[in-house]
C-alpha cells in the first residue's frame, strides 16, 4: 500500500500551519479581551537560513495541546532578516507555555519532513529543548510567562 503524498494521520511532528495561525490569532484576541494581565512574548530566533522563507511559531499552553495543530494558544510568523527572525506574540495571559518553531524554507506553508518523519526544514523549541528522534516533551520546553518576556531559540 503506497503512502498518500500527505499523511492524514496527526503525527508528533505536526506543527501549526497557516489555518491554525488564523484560529490561534482569533482565540488570542478573545483571551486578551477577557483577562486583565497580559504579557508580550518576543522570540528571537537564531540560526535561520538567510534568504529563505519565514519562521513560523506556535505557542501551546499545556501538554495535552502540545504540537496539535488546532490547539495552539497563539501563532506568529516573521520573515527572516539575515540569519535571524523576531516573532512577537502579544497580550498573552500569564502562565506556562511551550513553543515550537520551524522555518518554512521553501515557502509552501508546511513543515516538510521525509517519509520517515525526519524534518527537512530547520526547527526549534523554547528552551532549545531537544527530543530523541522526535520532538521534546512539553515539559522539556515549558517556560513561565509572567510579564513581557524575550526568549531566544536557536534552530537546528
Amino acid at each position, binding site marked *: 500500500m503506497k*503512502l498518500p503524498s500527505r499523511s492524514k494521520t496527526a503525527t508528533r511532528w505536526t506543527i501549526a500551519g497557516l489555518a491554525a495561525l488564523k484560529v490561534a490569532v482569533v482565540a488570542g484576541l478573545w483571551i486578551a479581551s477577557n483577562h486583565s494581565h497580559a504579557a508580550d512574548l518576543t522570540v528571537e530566533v537564531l540560526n535561520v537560513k538567510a534568504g529563505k522563507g519565514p519562521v513560523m511559531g506556535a505557542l501551546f499552553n499545556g501538554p495535552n495541546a502540545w504540537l496539535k495543530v488546532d490547539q495552539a494558544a497563539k501563532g506568529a510568523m516573521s520573515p527572516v532578516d539575515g540569519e535571524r527572525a523576531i516573532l512577537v506574540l502579544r497580550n498573552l495571559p500569564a502562565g506556562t507555555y511551550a513553543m515550537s518553531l520551524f522555518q518554512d524554507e521553501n515557502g509552501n506553508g508546511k513543515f516538510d519532513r521525509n*517519509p520517515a518523519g*525526519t524534518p527537512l526544514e530547520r526547527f526549534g523549541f523554547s528552551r532549545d529543548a531537544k527530543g530523541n528522534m522526535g520532538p521534546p516533551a512539553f515539559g522539556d520546553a515549558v517556560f513561565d510567562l509572567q510579564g513581557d518576556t524575550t526568549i531566544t531559540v536557536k534552530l537546528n
Partner: protein
Amino acid sequence: MDRRLLLRSLLGTAGSLALRARAGELPADPATSDATLAAFEAHRAGAPWTLGYEGLQADAAPMPLKLRGRMPLGLRGALYRNGAARHQLGDMRYHHWFDGDGMVQKYTVTDRGIEHRGRFLRTEKFLADSAAGRPVRIAFGTNPPGAERVGSPDSINVANTSVIRHAGEFLALWEGGSATGFDPETLATGELKTWSPDYQGMPFSAHPKVEPDGTLWNFGVSSARGLLSIYRISAKGEALQTVTLKIPQMTMLHDFVVTEKHLVFLLPPLVFDADRLHAGQTFLDSHVWKPELGMRALVLHKDRLEAPQWMELPAGFLFHCGNAWEDRNGVIRMDFIRSDDAYHATSGIKSLMQGRYEGEAVPAVALVQLDTRTGRARQTLLPHKAEFPRVGPRVVGRRYSQVFMAERIDARDRPGYDAVTRLNVVTGKSDRFRYGANVMVEEHVFVPNPAGSGKEGDGWLVGTALDLNRKAMLFSVFDAQRLSAGPLAQAEMARPMPLGLHAIFVPT
C-alpha cells in the same frame, strides 16, 4: 552503585522514563557498560582469533605490500573494503560487531605493486564520540551510558557496512541512514548523499543492486514506522523513482535481489518492537523472533512497486542474498545464505565481542523458486557453511549459475571462514581453495577479465584475509575458474586489520 541505576530500581519504569526526560540522557544498558571490555581483555590472550576483533584507534597510514607471483596484466585498480573498525573508545567496548565506526580500506594495485591505506569516515557520530573520548551516541547494539539525544538517524550513522561507486561517486553505505561520500584517492570523508530532496536523510541499504544497463536499485527500512522505501536510480545517478510502502510486522532486512521484472525481499521473522525501543532497549534488542510468521517473501513488480505479492517460505534468518533471475514463465530463482534462527546474528556475535567463541550457526545455501503466477514458493538447502555470497557484475538480475563465497571447511576453534568457494547453483558442484585454519577469510569479489570472453566467471577472484600466525593481511588473486589451484599472486601486508565487511574492486 550508579545513582541512575539506584533511582531506576526505586522508581520503576515510569520513574525511569521521567528520569530520562529530566536528565536529558537515555537509559544505560543495565550494568554491562564495561562488561564487554572486561570480558574481551580476559579472554583475548587465550584466543588468537580476537586479533580480528580488536579494532583500531587511528587511521592506517599508507603501507606497501610484499608481492609473490605476478599480478595478472589486466588486473589494475583498487579493492575498497568497508567495515566497523573502531570497536572501543575510552572505557567502553561496543557490544556488537556492527556497532563500530566505519573505516574504508583501499588496496591499490598498480604496475609498481600494491599499497594499502585505511581511513575512518568522519561521520557526525565519529566526531562527537572522538571529542568526548567515549561513545556519546547510541549504536546498533549498544546504548552507552549518558548517551546524548539525537535528532535523526544520520546523527548515529557510522557508514560502516559497504562501498559502491555509482555515476562516478564513491559512497560508504550503512543501512539506517544516508550514504556518505568519500574521496577515492585520499579516502577523505565527503557529504551525506541526497538522492532527491524529499528523501533526504532516508535510510539507504548497504546492498544496492546495479543491473547490466547501469540502473541502481536499492531499499531502506524505517523500523519505527514500519516503512520500506525503494529507490530506482539511473546510471547517471538521477533518482528516477522513490516509493515508500507500509509493511505490517516489519523486520530486520539487510539485502534483496532484483530480476529483469521484479524485486524480491525475504523478511526473516525478526520483528521490530517500538515499545522495547521506548523502554530503553538497543535497536538490535528491540527485535523479537517470531517464527510463526515464517519467512515472508515480498515480491514487487518493477512497474507496480506499490502492489506487493506475498509468498511464504519456512522460518529462518538471513543477512545476504546471492543473486536472482526469472524465466519467461515468471518463475524467479534466487539464492541466499540461510540460518535456522537469529541466535548467531544477535547473541553469537555479541559473544565474539567479549572474546568468547560459542560455535557457529549451521548455515546453508538456500536455493529458492518463487512462482509469480501461482504464488507458490519452494526451497532447497545445500550444505555449505558460507557467507558473503557474490556474483559477477554482468549477471546481476540475469540468468546465472556461479556464486562466490567465503566458506568454513575446518576452521576449528575460532569463528569465521577458512576457504573461498565457487558454487554452481545449477549443478551443485563447487571449486574451492582452503587458506588454512589460522587464516580468517574476508569477502572475496569477482573481477571480470577486461580482455576475456565476457562469459560468466571469466576473470579473477580477488580478496583479503587475516593470517593469525603472521599477524598480517594477505591479498590474493585467483583464476576464478581454478580456485583449487591456489592464488596466481599473493601479497602480504605486515600489519593486521580489523575484519571487514563488504568490498568492491574498481578497475583503473
